[in-house]
């Protein structure tokens, strides 16, 4: 059903931290068009779900795209077991609108946990556009912090923050002090919803335009189902076709958190069933 050279073969895999991986996959059509800020939908098997993953890198000559994931649910755990040479069922993209990359002056890039990987693509693009880039990387604990060296090499300044203070600053309170001493023209935040909300709340009084990348639930990711709807500035928007980037000062984060958890019980059930060896209910054996 797919074109002969579209095998979606995994070319390289890399463990970034425990349970956090970066895959480079063959997808020449997507590699040719991908831009920072966009995402792909992947399906790992015939019975698999469609999950959105933000593009972390692309190589137009090799015809590959990269994405990072955290092994939390069944699909990502199963994905984590695949190795170089294995093929995915389908990769569709690039989806969503590309980021607005131009010379703003001084840009602050804030990344949290696994979203640090796609953030660095933004950092790279912002640098190439002539910006001075200050990067903040955040993680729960020191062990979970990824891609620090890469970020250091790319950014003009780098700050580290962890939830427990095991490395760098504890929490993001220091950001307020930083903004009081330094002026930024734009802020880009990618990470857990709570982190993006905190960043947006801190930058608001300083009037720094803050762009957040939303990763709500998606099914088709082409504007058809509406499960990714979010409220931005009081208006209903679809993250997949209107986003995934939005003005962080306008997003209803509280609603977003609730909507991200809609299928949590089912996701947990599926993950547990998979870990104990698959569903044994015997329905619809096919």
């Amino acid at each position: 059903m797919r074109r002969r050279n579209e095998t979606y073969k995994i070319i390289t895999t890399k463990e970034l931290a425990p349970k956090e991986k970066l895959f480079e996959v063959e997808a020449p059509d997507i590699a040719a068009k991908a831009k920072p800020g966009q995402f792909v939908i992947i399906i790992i098997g015939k019975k698999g779900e469609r999950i959105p993953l933000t593009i972390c890198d692309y190589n137009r000559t090799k015809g590959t795209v990269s994405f990072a994931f955290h092994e939390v649910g069944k699909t990502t755990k199963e994905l984590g077991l695949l190795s170089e040479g294995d093929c995915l069922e389908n990769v569709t993209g690039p989806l969503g609108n590309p980021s607005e990359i131009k010379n703003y002056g001084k840009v602050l890039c804030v990344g949290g946990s696994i979203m640090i990987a796609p953030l660095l693509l933004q950092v790279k693009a912002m640098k190439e556009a002539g910006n001075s880039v200050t990067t903040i990387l955040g993680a729960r604990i020191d062990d979970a912090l990824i891609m620090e060296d890469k970020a250091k090499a790319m950014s003009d300044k780098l700050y580290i923050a962890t939830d427990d203070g095991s490395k760098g600053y504890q929490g993001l309170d220091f950001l307020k002090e930083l903004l009081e001493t330094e002026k930024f023209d734009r802020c880009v935040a990618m990470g857990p919803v709570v982190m993006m909300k905190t960043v947006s709340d801190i930058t608001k009084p300083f009037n720094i335009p803050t762009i957040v990348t939303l990763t709500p639930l998606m099914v088709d990711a082409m504007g058809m189902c509406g499960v990714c709807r979010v409220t931005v500035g009081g208006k209903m928007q679809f993250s997949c076709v209107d986003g995934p980037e939005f003005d962080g000062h306008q997003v209803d984060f509280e609603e977003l958190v609730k909507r991200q958890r809609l299928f949590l019980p089912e996701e947990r059930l599926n993950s547990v069933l998979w870990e104990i060896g698959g569903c044994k209910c015997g329905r619809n054996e096919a």
Partner: protein
Amino acid sequence: MAETKPKAKPKIKKEVVKMPKQKPKERVKNFNEVALGYTEEQALEEASRCLQCVKPQCVAGCPVEVPIPEFIECMREKKYAEGIAVIKSKNALPAVCGRVCPQEEQCQVKCVLGKIGDPVSIGRLERYLADWERDHDFQIPEKVKPTGKKVAIVGAGPAGLTAAADLAKLGHEVVIFEALHLPGGVLVYGIPEFRLPKAIVRNEVNYIEKLGANLRVGNMIGRTHTIPELMKNGIDAVFIGSGAGLPQFLGVSGENLGGIYSANEYLIRINLMKAFTFPEYDTPIRVGKHVVVIGGGNVAMDCARSSMRLGAEVCLLYRRSRDELPARKEEIENAEEEGLVCRFLAAPLRFIGDEKGWVKTMGCQCMELGPPDESGRRRPIPIKGSEFTMEVDTVIIAIGQTPNPIIQRTTEGLEVNPKRGTILIDENGKTSIDGVYAGGDVVTGAATVISAMGAGKTAAKAIHKYLMNKK
């Protein structure tokens, strides 16, 4: 024309041969097809009712001009292979059309027999032949000489598949781009298994691939490639059949609470992603005990009937009365047999959730019918002071879809109706861009499978003419 001797006229059977169906109590527990199809005897008996009119009105009622009396004549002589070939000369998706076409408004409404009794059940006969063929291998028409022209079809739904089949048969090189990971469009993501088994859709697509069309899934035109890029890279003509995929919401408060689905989300999860088999398939769905479906079209019926199969008690809330229900009568009857409760002349005002963000209560308002609006249907008018509430676990909003805007946004020079987002075409399906044609829901807004197929056919004719005249 040779005169036949007037013999004693055989008695015309006024009543249609009934379609065997799964019993309501049984079928509401499974997702298997409800209508089981005629047996050979039943099909032959129904075929014998056709009067073989010299000027058949039924053909005029068919958007793709299937030579109906001819295929029925073949059936009567038990020449089934010839019969299906007659249908396929005009219709590449007979197993689909035999199941989901609203024949009662098209071919059958024109049937002369309808004046004295039941019209011939053309759809069921078409289905019989298509199913017969599936059990007996396809015949692939002989390949014609390649024209050397390349056509891209955007969307593997009813419009695109029809255009692809017609153009492939004419010798053009056809590439179908489908954005989802499976072909079929609304036939796979929208219409449920119990009305149209997905294996049948797959089979019809196989036939179109065997005609020579090349299918590319997971390839979203407007993102992966754009139409201008295709035209630059050796494609001579494009047909856009991208459908009406964008769901409409009500615009009332609380609409983003958990447990509130668009009809699209609900049906995509169940049909395309097979959530009704979760955790066998990975995509979940959650359906509570009390489901309310808002809307009154075929999509609303599909949502309601799927919900009952998932064990829910379902209430349909429609703002007009029973007479205005846009769904097919047959679907309404099927749904009510399965236990659907309809609440007419009422509309939602707001949704109220619990502390976890799940919908709990729905505030509604009663309506009365005023004078007809632009659609010709009587306009619902709210009755003051008639508010009431309903306890709900799950709400499905099935009030219509509009075209997906991505192709329109990424194709410079493509003229679009600014209000409705539909692509503008001339009577041959041609858009404002030379070599680019469109048809189906992306042009008309949400309509029927067969009208989309008709549009695919019209455009295919025009594309063929365009390609053959192009230097």
